[in-house]
């Protein structure tokens, strides 16, 4: 059975800690949830539970990085990108420090805790910070790559991680690259550009739509910043319609990042935005939330159908 994304992250981090002594891991009293505790167990001397003090944690990491450490800061996505934001902006990104952000419960994956615990604006926040790189893994292999990439490459980096299990999409042999997206399903009528959970929902949608004679290309845009401009342009030219799909507010996230490229390049095509429609969410089981807020396969299908009607 595939492991939850947070579990993969914690396990890989602990393994990387075996070979890289500079990795230090900080958490804010959620290490059992974020799975940074796996690192903590393996390397207790390099693990720091800062208490429920996110600002303290992130700014401490900023300081540690100046002494040559590679700090990973961990807590629920929503608190990391709100309480942790000041240091992220004014210390870590401004000074281009080597701090890595593990946002553990992205989107609505902390479903039952409700809107206060859902992170639906984190991509927008983090990608607006100069020097910050934004990666959204979509399965275990991409999570492994992203975590290792963060260790091996200098600079502020944000990993958007899920509480949940994602099915496997890639193999251990798959090569990932910062600034690249992956075509995970070929198609010619429309491209769904998705990230994280929505890549899987898009695959489901594509399968269902194939039965109706619609050929859907699916792109996993796991690197949101920098983003794969060439691939976006290529998809717009070749399929003539785009659906952006993300477990995030439709404002400021992947959809916005893709639109910026299309607008700049002057190759805009009809585009639909599958995501949370600028609203607060609520407490309920995860699948019910995904359905209600239109971020499941049906949501992607609806987006595709709408965009195809508008396609010239």
């Amino acid at each position, binding site marked *: 059975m595939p492991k939850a994304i947070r579990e993969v992250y914690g396990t890989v981090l602990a393994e990387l800690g075996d070979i890289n002594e500079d990795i230090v891991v900080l*958490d804010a*009293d959620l290490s059992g949830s974020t799975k940074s505790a796996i690192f903590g167990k393996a390397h207790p001397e390099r693990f720091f539970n*800062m208490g429920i003090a996110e600002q303290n944690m992130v700014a401490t990491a900023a300081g540690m990085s100046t002494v040559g450490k590679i700090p990973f800061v961990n807590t629920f996505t929503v608190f990391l990108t709100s309480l942790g934001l000041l240091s992220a902006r004014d210390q870590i990104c401004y000074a281009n420090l080597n701090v890595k952000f593990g946002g553990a419960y992205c989107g609505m994956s902390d479903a039952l805790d409700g809107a*206060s615990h859902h992170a639906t604006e984190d991509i927008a926040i983090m990608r607006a910070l100069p020097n910050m790189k934004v990666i959204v893994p979509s399965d275990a292999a991409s999570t492994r790559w992203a975590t290792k990439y963060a260790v091996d490459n200098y600079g502020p980096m944000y990993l958007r991680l899920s509480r949940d299990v994602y099915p496997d999409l890639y193999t251990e042999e798959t090569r990932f690259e910062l600034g690249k997206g992956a075509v995970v399903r070929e198609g010619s009528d429309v491209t769904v550009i998705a990230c994280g959970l929505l890549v899987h929902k898009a695959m489901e949608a594509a399968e269902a739509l194939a039965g109706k004679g619609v050929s859907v290309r699916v792109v996993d845009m796991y690197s949101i910043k920098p983003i794969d401009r060439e691939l976006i342009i290529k998809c717009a030219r070749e399929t003539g319609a785009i659906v952006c799909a993300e477990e995030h507010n439709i404002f400021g996230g992947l959809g916005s990042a893709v639109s910026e490229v299309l607008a700049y390049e002057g190759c805009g095509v009809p585009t639909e935005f599958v995501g949370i429609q600028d609203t607060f969410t609520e407490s*309920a*089981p995860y699948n019910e939330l995904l359905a209600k807020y239109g971020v499941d396969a049906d949501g992607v299908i609806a987006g595709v159908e709408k965009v195809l009607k508008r396609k010239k």
Partner: protein
Amino acid sequence: MALTAERIAELNELCRRFRIDVLTAIHAPKSGHPGGSLSVCEILTYLYQEHMNLDANKADDPDRDRLVLSKGHAAPMLYRNLAEKGFFPVEEMSTLRRMGGLAGHPNMHTPGVEMPGGPLGQGFPAAQGMAMALKLNKSPAKVYAILGDGELDEGVIWETAMSAAKFKLDNLIAIVDYNKVQLDGTTDEVMPLGDLAGKWEAFGWTVLECDGHDIEALDFCVSVADAAVGAPTVIIANTIKGKGVSFMEGKNAWHGKAIDDESFAKAMEELGGEVNA
């Protein structure tokens, strides 16, 4: 006036029933926070059912007392108290964490809630703001801020401690649910609080300490706090996380754990509740 023995017994009986109802509500969706809901039971029940000037029929009375549950994850115990006060039917407890139902953390869709909760630390300064504005309005209302001990790790708690003393907020009463346990472990393991009373004192607060499960002691401390002049008061209420269910007591594992059927049955047996809910 001191509470009568009968009234104390009534409130204790309410607490027993609330514990049953709250665990029942958390058990159903297999999600929620038993430990911190149980530890804060007497504190909330005393304030809502005995002490506060609050009437669901005059819910927007500008002079009503306010309570901000800064440790918002104990929402189920807040909801049970609000239901008892008549803000909504008790039956709504069964909608906890379900679509369209009571939220995992308090929000303004629920009548009687004064401020959304969830992110620890933030409720306290919001309560302070209420106290400052009520003072401007010359209102006699009091503001009670309920804090977790792990929550005290947040820097903003101490920012508020400093400013509330500066502004002489004698209408602000902080109650710390001092159960000595947070999420990853005990407060000593995660972030030692040291001389907690001394810390508050150093910030200019009047400090009272009591057994947070003893209604009579709570009544005494809250009454003293209400009469404060010129400085805010904190009540350090010594409690037990998971209080009332032996196997949950003092265990961080029961902070935010789904209650499995077997544990639920055992808990109901200890509290004298029904399992078939």
